């Protein structure tokens, strides 16, 4: 079973025969005990620490279709080494491009993506309405009503900027409830990015990055082209199809995890450090969060149409398949909506 591997420690990764060898290096430059990682067990690498590697390693990773995602000191995603495409399908590419080029076809997919994202946002909020039922706080029910209202205007949109405007309003309403959900320990104070201005924003940004890279890795293992997107503008920055698909999964994968970890006191304000112009998560907390994310991705649910248990990670893949089918004219795309 292939699994993503996360590298937090500084060290050297090298090819050793047909396996990977990781040698940790401490701050004084002393080498520690090497560990071997069979290549068959690695789906992708997430590099948070300082990694020393040579082209022989990248050639080897490329041959096995293993991508490497890099994050800088501030936990920002900086880029990926993407192995050569191995699933080229001309027809799929052409259909994906055609759907993007036709304004009519593009808006349909973009609307569905927003509907999926909003449905999952509502699912998260409804759960917290019940949790907060005892309190005299109407902010969550109010937000639900506002989002439901906004959602109704989605089918009437006829261009992507208009749709993005609605999406922005949905997100803003959604984020305004965060203070009610975790306000006792953390303060939201509006969404801020690049750099995030406080702890909760730092956490959301970091989580969204993890979700985005998980989507990117999944797209790589399908015939979809990660640069041709529908909701986000292609090529504006990064692999925009991964941003599109991440919209659907962020509430379920990232926000729920954040709330869960904060409520269980696995993340506390002391896990963060204020730096000039922004807020940074401390390393131990980062590790805990990544571990929590990894465990969540392995959790399974019983899929209703497949009739078998599938992991959260696999749900992302199924989303890619549905999109492929839509683009090939096999079956209309309907976004994943969590029902629990």
């Amino acid at each position: 079973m292939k699994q993503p591997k996360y590298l937090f420690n500084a060290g050297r990764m090298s090819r050793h025969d047909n396996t990977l060898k990781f040698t940790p290096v401490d701050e004084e430059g002393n080498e520690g005990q090497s560990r071997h990682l069979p290549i068959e067990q690695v789906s992708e690498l997430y590099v948070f620490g300082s990694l020393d590697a040579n082209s022989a390693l990248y050639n080897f990773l490329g041959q096995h279709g293993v991508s490497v995602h890099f994050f800088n000191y501030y936990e920002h995603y900086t880029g990926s080494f993407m192995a050569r495409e191995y699933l080229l399908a001309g027809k799929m590419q052409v259909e994906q491009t055609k759907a993007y080029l036709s304004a009519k076809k593009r808006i349909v997919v973009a609307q569905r993506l927003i509907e999926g994202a909003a449905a999952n946002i509502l699912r998260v909020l409804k759960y917290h309405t019940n949790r907060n039922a005892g309190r005299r706080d109407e902010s969550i029910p109010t937000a639900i009503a506002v989002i439901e209202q906004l959602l109704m205007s989605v089918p009437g949109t006829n261009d992507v900027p208009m749709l993005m405007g609605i999406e922005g309003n949905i997100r803003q309403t959604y984020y305004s409830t965060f203070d009610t959900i975790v306000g006792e320990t953390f303060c939201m104070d509006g969404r801020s990015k690049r750099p995030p201005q406080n702890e909760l924003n730092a956490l959301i940004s970091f989580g969204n990055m993890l979700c985005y890279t998980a989507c990117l890795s999944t797209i790589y293992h399908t015939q979809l082209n990660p640069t041709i997107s529908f909701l986000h503008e292609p090529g504006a920055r990064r692999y925009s199809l991964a941003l599109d698909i991440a919209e659907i999964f962020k509430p379920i994968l990232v926000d729920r995890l954040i709330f869960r970890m904060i409520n269980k006191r696995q993340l506390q304000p002391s896990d963060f450090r204020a730096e000039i112009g922004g807020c940074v998560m401390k390393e131990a907390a980062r590790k805990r969060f990544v571990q929590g994310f990894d465990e969540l991705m392995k959790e399974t649910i019983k899929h209703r149409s497949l009739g078998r248990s599938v992991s959260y990670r696999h749900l992302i893949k199924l989303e890619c398949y549905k999109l492929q089918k839509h683009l090939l004219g096999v079956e209309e795309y309907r976004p994943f909506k969590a029902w629990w």
Partner: protein
Amino acid sequence: MHANATLVNYLHLCHRKLWLHANQIRMEHTSEAVAEGKQLHEHAYPQRAERYREIILDGSKIDFYDPYDKVVHEIKKSDKLEHSHMAQVQFYLYLLRRNGIEGATGLIEYPKLRQTQTVRLDDDDVPVVEAWVADIERIVSSDQCPERIAKSKCRSCSYFDFCYAEEE
């Protein structure tokens, strides 16, 4: 579109699988069953004699061909005899015949069943195989992806998640 043995096999299994595969939308790399089949292929008959050869005819690869006795060997992981296996081997025999090798026979080996199945290609089978090739060309060149087959055998197919992933 050039018909090959894989496509002949898929023609007899599922037209959607045939169409997707021919359009490069492939799922075989995600399948444990395919990986197992590969393993079996490599290890089932370690003592396989030197004289067996791998040959490529018009874009189809025959893994084990015995040029002395003119026998095509095909190893299958399956635990039952399938019509699609027969069709695949008949197609090999057809290719051999078209390349000037008359009277070859086929042998499908099922290591799991400890059973073998002989396959021949008679004169009146030739137009049947040619009709398959025409069918493949017709299906693959269509813009429309064929319907899925609602069959229990979909469960073990590597395209299962692709075909059945949908929202209620």
